[in-house]
């Protein structure tokens, strides 16, 4: 690794930092590996990621093993449009009222659910971390202003704010809109947490030393404060992905998510199941399977996040 880095012409300190980063990652992994729940979560998540990335290939393999008439796509009308059909040899989970194969839709649904969860988390963690870092670092009136705004987002119930935003933002339903709405409503808790952490870090002597050496605010925050809060932010990001996936499924369920005829998510599959009266037509698997997928993905992110939190959160390590 070192020689490769040197060939790209990176300076000595950068190499040193990369080496340190690798050492830290290896050390963290050694602790993480001993956390049984964390490992279960990681393995389950990897399985979901592989299935979602290789969804078409998975479908190809399945259809050849099971001898289905064709390789189904998530929007292919392969059954009569109407009330949906119960499971058969060719459609393991049955078909929905759009005439789509439910198993196929479930497999493809993992893509958007995971994608929205990850990107929305990036948005909300980025925003929350930035607000928390500067609010905690500056203090004074700027902190006061930022915290009052944070309070508004903290006090408003997430779902209510999401509903109003999703209903009001111009343009039809889309993946981008859902990402924006989840990101903009979910940052306040992170901001609070990061701010508290920064307030305890900023009085350490190394910050004082950097300042007396003439470092500016932005430089100190970037070089000295942020690296120290990063592990905690990272652990919380993983937990936030779980919440974002739940938010996405809820928004899709109340028909404020992406258009179900063009984008499949587990949330809009469940909304279909509800409007298609899956209960009355004995299509229980239509409700059960997408729901369990949400539960297991959220669970695996939660297990990983809690394991990381145990490693990185100084308050938890003490116990």
């Amino acid at each position: 690794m070192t020689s490769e880095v040197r060939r790209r012409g990176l300076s000595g300190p950068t190499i040193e930092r990369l080496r340190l980063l690798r050492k830290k990652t290896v050390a963290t992994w050694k602790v993480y590996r001993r956390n049984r729940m964390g490992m279960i979560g990681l393995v389950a998540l990897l399985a979901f990621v592989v299935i979602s990335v290789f969804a078409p290939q998975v479908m190809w393999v399945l259809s050849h093993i099971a001898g289905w008439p064709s390789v189904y796509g998530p929007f292919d009308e392969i059954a009569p449009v109407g009330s949906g059909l119960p499971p058969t040899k060719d459609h393991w989970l049955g078909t929905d009222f759009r005439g789509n194969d439910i198993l196929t839709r479930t497999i493809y649904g993992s893509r958007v659910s995971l994608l929205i969860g990850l990107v929305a988390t990036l948005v909300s963690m980025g925003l929350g971390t930035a607000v928390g870092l500067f609010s905690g670092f500056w203090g004074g009136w700027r902190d006061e202003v930022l915290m009052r705004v944070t309070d508004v987002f903290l006090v408003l119930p997430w779902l209510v704010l999401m509903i109003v935003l999703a209903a009001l933002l111009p343009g039809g339903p889309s993946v981008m809109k859902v990402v924006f709405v989840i990101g903009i409503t979910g940052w306040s808790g992170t901001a609070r947490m990061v701010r508290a952490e920064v307030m305890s870090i900023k009085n350490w002597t190394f910050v004082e030393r950097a300042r007396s050496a003439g470092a500016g605010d932005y430089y100190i925050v970037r070089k000295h404060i942020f690296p120290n809060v990063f592990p905690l932010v990272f652990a919380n990001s993983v937990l936030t992905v779980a919440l974002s996936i739940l938010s996405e499924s809820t928004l899709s369920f109340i028909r404020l998510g992406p258009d179900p005829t063009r984008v499949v998510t587990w949330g809009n599959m469940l909304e279909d199941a509800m409007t298609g009266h899956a209960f009355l037509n004995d299509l229980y698997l239509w409700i059960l399977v997408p729901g369990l997928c949400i539960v297991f993905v959220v669970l695996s992110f939660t297990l990983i996040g809690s394991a990381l939190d145990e490693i990185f959160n100084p308050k938890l390590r003490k116990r």
Partner: protein
Amino acid sequence: MKAMTIMIIRKVLNSVITLLLVIILNFALFRLMPGNPINVMVPPDPRIPAEYKQHLIDEYGLNDPMYVQFFTYIKNALLFKFGDSFTDPGTPAMSIVLSNLKWTLILAGTSSILMIVIGMAIGIASAWKRGSLFDSGSLAFTLFFYAMPTFWFSMMLIAIFATGLNWFPDSGALKFGTRPEWTWASFVDLIRHLILPAASLTLGAIGEFALIMRGSLADVMTEDYITTARAKGLRERDVMRYHAVPNAMLPMVVLIAMTLAFVVGGVFQTEIVFNYPGVGYLTIKATYDLNYPILQAAFFLIAVIMIIAVFIADLLIIMMDPRISVG
């Protein structure tokens, strides 16, 4: 005492500022809408008489310059005036929201009490017997329900107990077409309709309270005064009851206030699945009809209730925490 007064005044000020920011957010959001702000307050339906529309435009000053509109808006918001519902002209949106509020309060109130009481009991029991089968069992239960979307759990309950076993009705707050009365039959009907939605809300959130209580107690149990209490020869029961639990309550109150926002989110989902005629059901229906006055009124009312709830929680914390109240 003085520190306490200052703190309370600060909290009051913060709440007022939050309220004003909510009003500003509300104003800005509903005017972000493409096109004319008149579309937000005046029903687009062409069958509605033009005089009525003109009356609304005059009353809410919708043709005034933006800054005049802004102050009119603040005044109206503080008077709870958000225009008339689009779907039933002549009826103020707020009065419709308020009439639905009682159902939300019944549902949210019942399940909040249940989830706090049961959750705390489980939390105390698992902190007491840490590492036991009960402890790990309740942890697994907690995680599973935490990962479950509330709306999905509601659907499963309907599938099993309503359409499957036919024990409970699957929608509404009362038998279709009836109104609440002060009779035994009406009360029984109300409870029968309440059980499934309340169960879905309660079971979904018990875990969170159990986890918080367990964590809070686990922190307290490492304190020196617990060792002292044990050294005095107190029974484990009494150590729990008189020394550990009261001290673990403080973080609990903070978190109950925080969790309230999530309870509201859960209520919304439960109401839509069960067609329960509360504020959540109304709000989500309003997004489908683009019924903006209802949406604004519901949003504002919920914000006000939350601000008051958080303020009360803050007051309780100030009163309960001896480090603040004694000075």
